[in-house]
Structures are given as C-alpha cells and as structure tokens.
C-alpha cells in the first residue's frame, strides 16, 4: 500500500519546497540569530543565551505579554462567545422570522471590518476616539455624559481597553460567519423535534446548537487566539505601543528591535519565544479538539 502511494510523493514536492522556503528556513534562521548579537548586517556574534537572559529580565517584554493576555480575551474569548450567540440569533430567529436575506445582510455587516484594510480601520477608530473632536466623546457630551469622556488612546489607564474594544468590533464578524456556516449543516429535524418536545430557544441553543458546532468552535478559538498573539497592524496604527508602552505587544516589540534599534538578535529572541508559545497553544487546542471528537 505504502509502495503504491509512493508515486504521489511527487505531487508533494512543490508544497514541501514552498514550506521549506517560506516557513522552515526562516524559522531556523530566526532561532539561530536569536543566539547572536547582530545588527542585521555583517557577521552575527554568537552570544549563547544572552538575549534570552536579557529578555526574561526585561520588564517591557513581560508587560507586552501581559497586554497580549488581555488582547486574547478581547480577540478570541469575547468574539467567540458573542459570535456564537449572534450566529444563533441570526440563524434561528432573524433568518426564520424575517428571511435569510436579512440574516445575510447582518452577517455581511458584522464581517465588514475583516475586509476593510487594517490601516483604514485604525485611522477611522483613531478619529472616533480622538480626545477633542472624536465622535465618541462628542456623543457622550451630547447625551449629558461629558464626565465619562476620556482621552481613550492617550491615557495609559484606558488605551489598552480602547484597543480591546476596537479588536472586539474587528473580530466579531469572523466567528459569526463561521458559526452560521456550521449551523447550516445541522439537520433541521433536530430543531423540529425539540420544538415538538416543547424546548425553549435557550434549551435548543444549549443542547443542539452549541453541541453540534463544536468543531467550528475549536477552529474559531484557535485561529482567533493565534491572531491575538500575533496582533501588530492595529496596535501600530492606533497607538504604536503607547502611551508609555501601555499597549505594547510582543510582535510590535520585536519589530521595534528589528527595524528601529537594529538589535536583530534580540528581536529574533522575542519572535522565537512568541513562536514557541503559538505552537504550544495550537498543539494544545488541536489535542482538545481531537479528544472531544473522540468522545463524540
């Protein structure tokens, strides 16, 4: 059998070569460079674990990982839970009561932030959150809540929460689309049977919807978590890691070391730690998914 399949190996060559060039070689190089002191030009000088020793003693590094923890909450957990509820409402209520076109319209609306370029959404949000002429503060003042107006992106006490809010808005469409496509493959007779048995909407949601779209749930959770760990563009456009590093994230921290400080070895160490973390989390999620499928 294995011998008969050997001929198919030829078809794998382009993919393997592309993976080698785009993933494996750069990864190996990054790991190697992380053990050197290098400005990006000239000969790297081997320094062993110096970059890692420095990294684990760097308060900015820990601060960036603390921030990423909150961003995982904003980009993975909240959108996944909200997306699940929204998808169920659109599919099971809006779609049935008002027609699929309305459900599709809402779905597209939620998904729109995913399609608009990051730079554009970043600039729009920086206008909305501008302390003096931003729409948010103007609205708060207009409804008599001027006391709640804040310097959303310029105050270290609020900047990260503001970025989190933007990221929830940005991410919400992805789980909605994924879960709605998952819901469409559930046998309608299950819902009909539940209706006949007198199940409430909440019971149907808990016992059928959540249970049946578990595979999508895992996919969404893993992809959004990885996206949160890698977040760069929105932070770059909205705050550049500021004010006073309060919104610093690992990828932007690595970028600063690579391109602004010419500390390529140190930047590679940050990237390597981030890669290890992402791979470990992906592995953990896949194991959990595999186990849950086995239980089913």
């Amino acid at each position, binding site marked *: 059998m294995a011998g008969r399949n050997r001929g198919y190996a030829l078809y794998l060559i382009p993919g393997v070569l592309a993976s*080698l060039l785009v993933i*494996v*070689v750069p990864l*190996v*190089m990054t790991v*190697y460079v992380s053990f050197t002191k290098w*400005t*990006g*030009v*000239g*000969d*790297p000088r081997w320094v062993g674990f110096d970059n890692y020793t420095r990294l684990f003693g760097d308060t900015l590094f820990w601060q960036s990982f603390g921030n990423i923890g909150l961003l995982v909450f904003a980009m993975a957990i909240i959108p996944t839970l909200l997306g699940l509820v929204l998808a169920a409402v659109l599919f099971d209520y809006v779609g049935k009561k008002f027609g699929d076109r309305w459900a599709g319209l809402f779905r597209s609306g939620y998904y729109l932030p995913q399609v608009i370029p990051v730079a554009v959404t970043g600039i729009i949000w920086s206008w909305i959150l*501008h*302390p*003096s002429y931003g729409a948010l503060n103007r609205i708060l003042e207009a409804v008599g809540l001027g006391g709640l107006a804040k*310097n*959303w*992106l*310029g*105050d*270290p006490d609020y*900047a990260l929460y503001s970025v989190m809010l933007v990221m929830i808005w940005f991410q919400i469409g992805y789980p909605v689309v994924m879960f709605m496509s998952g819901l469409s493959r559930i046998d309608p007779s299950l819902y009909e049977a539940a209706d006949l048995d007198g199940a409430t909407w909440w019971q149907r949601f808990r016992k059928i919807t959540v249970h049946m779209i578990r595979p999508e749930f895992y996919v969404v959770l893993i992809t959004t978590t990885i996206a949160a760990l890698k977040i760069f563009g929105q932070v770059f456009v909205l*705050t*550049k*890691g*500021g*004010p*006073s*590093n309060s919104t610093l994230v690992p990828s932007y921290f690595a970028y*600063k*070391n690579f*391109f*602004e*400080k*010419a*500390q390529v070895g140190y930047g590679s160490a940050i990237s390597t730690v981030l890669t290890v973390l992402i791979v470990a989390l992906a592995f953990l999620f896949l194991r959990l998914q595999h186990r849950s499928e086995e239980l089913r």
Partner: protein
Amino acid sequence: MLRSRSGLAAGALLLAATLGLTACSSDDTSTEGADAKSLTLWHYEGPNSAMGIAWNKAIELFKASHPGVEVKFEEKGFEQIQQNAQMILNSDSAPDILEYNKGNATAGLLSKQGLLTDLSDEFTKRGWDKKLSSSLQTTAKYDEDGIMGNGKVFGVPNYGEFVTVYYNKKMFDQYKLAVPTSFDEFTKVMDTFVQNKVTPLAVGGAEYPAQQIFYELALSKSDRAFVNDYQLYTNKVDFKGPQFTYGAQTFADWVSKGYISKDSAGIKAEDMGVSFTQGKFPILISGSWWYGRFASEIKDFEWGTFLFPGNTLHPGSSGNLWVVPEKSKAKALAYDFIDITMQPEVQALLGNSGGVPVAADPAAITDPKNKELVETFNKISTADGLAFYPDWPAPGYYDVLVAGTQGLINGSKTPDAFLDEIAKPYNENLSDLGK
C-alpha cells in the same frame, strides 16, 4: 531526523549566503560608474514640499547635462527607508543615490556597517566643504564607530532645519499679547491664555514634538559642551544634572499649569499641525519643515515665528543627507547629481519654496517670509547654535523619548522616573560602543 538536518543545512547555507559582506572598496570612486546609462534615485519628500520642488528641478538639470542617462526616480516613504535601509542597501536592489536620515542612529549606523560610500574626496574636490558651515558638516562626517562630527564624509546635506515657535497673531492680538523676548515673558503669555481657558501649546505627544519641547527646555540650561557630551559622547552625561532635570521638571510643570494638554499624549504630529492650522491653539513649537505648509494652508489668520525665548541653542541641524550606497553602480553620476542640488539655481528655488537652503545667495530669496526663515537659520548656524535632536544618540532612542514624554504628559511618570527611563538605553548604547 534526516529531514530536520537537511533543513538546518539549507538554513545554514542560506544564512551564509545572506550574511556575506562585500568587501569595502577603498579605490578611487570618482569615475566609477561614469559610463552608466541610468541613475536610480530615491527620496521621500512630497512633490509640493520645498525639497521635492528643488530636487525635481535638480533631476531636470541632471537630465539636461547627462543626455542618454535615464533617471529612475522612485518616491519612497520616510518610514519605509528609515526601517528598511540597511536591508535594502545590503542587497543588490540598492539605489545609486538616496536621501537618508542624519545622525548616529541612522546614517552613522549604515556607515559603520560599510553600506555607504566614503565621499571625503568628492567633498573637497567639488567644493562642498566650502558651501557647508562647520556645524552643518557635523552630520555629514562619521567615525569608525558611526559617531557624527569627525571622520569620513558619508553624506551631503543641502538644506537645513531647526525648531522654532510658531504663533497665531490673531489670538495674540485678541489678548493684547506681544511676542515674548525672554523665557519669563513667554510663560506670562502662556499664563494669559490659560486664564482665558485657552490651552496655549499645540503638542503631539505620540510622536516627535513633545520630546523636542523637553529638549528645548533642557537646552535653555545647556552649553555646547553639554550638547557635545550628549550627542558626540565627548564625556559621560549626568541625566540627573541641571540640564535634563530642569527640562523634565519644567515640562511636567507646563503640563500641570495647563500649558500642555493632558490629552496631547496620544496626538500625532500631523494632528498637532492641523489643529494649529485651524486656529485651535495659539502656539506650536516645532520644526521649520512646517513652514512651507503653514504658508500655503493657513488662510484665516496671520501667523509668525520667533525663536524659543532665551535660548542660544536650538534643536536643529542640517537636513537629511544625500548618501551613495556602497553597492551603487553609478557613483560618478550620483556625485554629479549631488553637485547639481548644491547649485545656486536649485538652492534659490529651495529657499523660495519655503525650505532652508544651505548654499543660497540670500539676495536670491525673494519672499520676505522665506527670507526671514533663512536668515534665522543662518543666524543660529553661524553662532553654532544647532543642537541636533534629542533622539539621535542611540538607535531606537526616538521611541524611548516618545514613551517617556507621554508619561510626563499624562502624569504616569515623575520627572525623576522619566530621567531614569531615558538614561538606561542611552548608557546601554554607550557600553555597546565600548565607551
């Protein structure tokens, strides 16, 4: 196992290939590439800026004097070149000539890495040394550690820049205020605005403007020796000394007095400039690079400039540099182009377009406002009053100062903590240089 080994081998091979440094040629390069049929030129000045206008003219003149040579001009972004220059200049995609940022952290770093051509011979042979004052030559020369001020010439500036105070005459008249001539008068002016519920200073805390105000304040207690210590590492700098302590403390006081809005921590330079243009703030402390733009965009009120009162030293320097990459295939043509940018015709055009030329005949500058700007720059330059910029001493220091001044603006850092924060990377860079 085998597969991972081959991956490693492939990685090592590719790494070896990418790390190969070309040997720096020390041959005479004055005629190198003279017979090239094209000149690839990069710069990042907008087509309507003074530099953009002048350099487009220079390209025109170059084409006229070099028939048969194609000029391949590629407009880039400042950030694009700032962050990728060393990778590009280390590849075969390097242009023949480009505009590049000046200072230890930028041009100095590239010169140290052997990525830039030594222009010392051309500098004297073509008389550029006569056209540039000694303080303007500081940013052109770099030693073997990439520290500016001495050593070989690696770049040629052809315009200047400095930080000044822009003010809205209409708002000054409204509160019957005169242009301040001393630091005390300046604070009285700002007090008057605060008393009338007007925030005096337009500030961009998310980018360079805030740190330039801090530096301007520190310079009010400094002399040339201190600037040389800080910028050229002549002697060790005491960050808790009178200069920076005064700068940080006074900056924090200005925030608490309401001269600088707490909201400005997240404001970008562009927003700051626009707010001044819209007449929302009476004063803006920033660079001469705003001058041409304000001249063309401010229609609703009269405005003017004055130097930071009481200071003899001001943030400022030569403008960005023309550099010739070591891998340039048309070095001789690149020198010719630089020479054209130094010609009186191009320099006068630069001055009349709102820029600060370094080698123009003052009589050729016809616009009175531009004339005033050029005269002010020349006054500072000849008095050795250009103190460079606060973020120059170390790679990545710009971000350190942005984060630090943001902390002062929003009150999350005391002046003392701010000084500790900015001292650390500065001193780390010194130890990296073995100083």
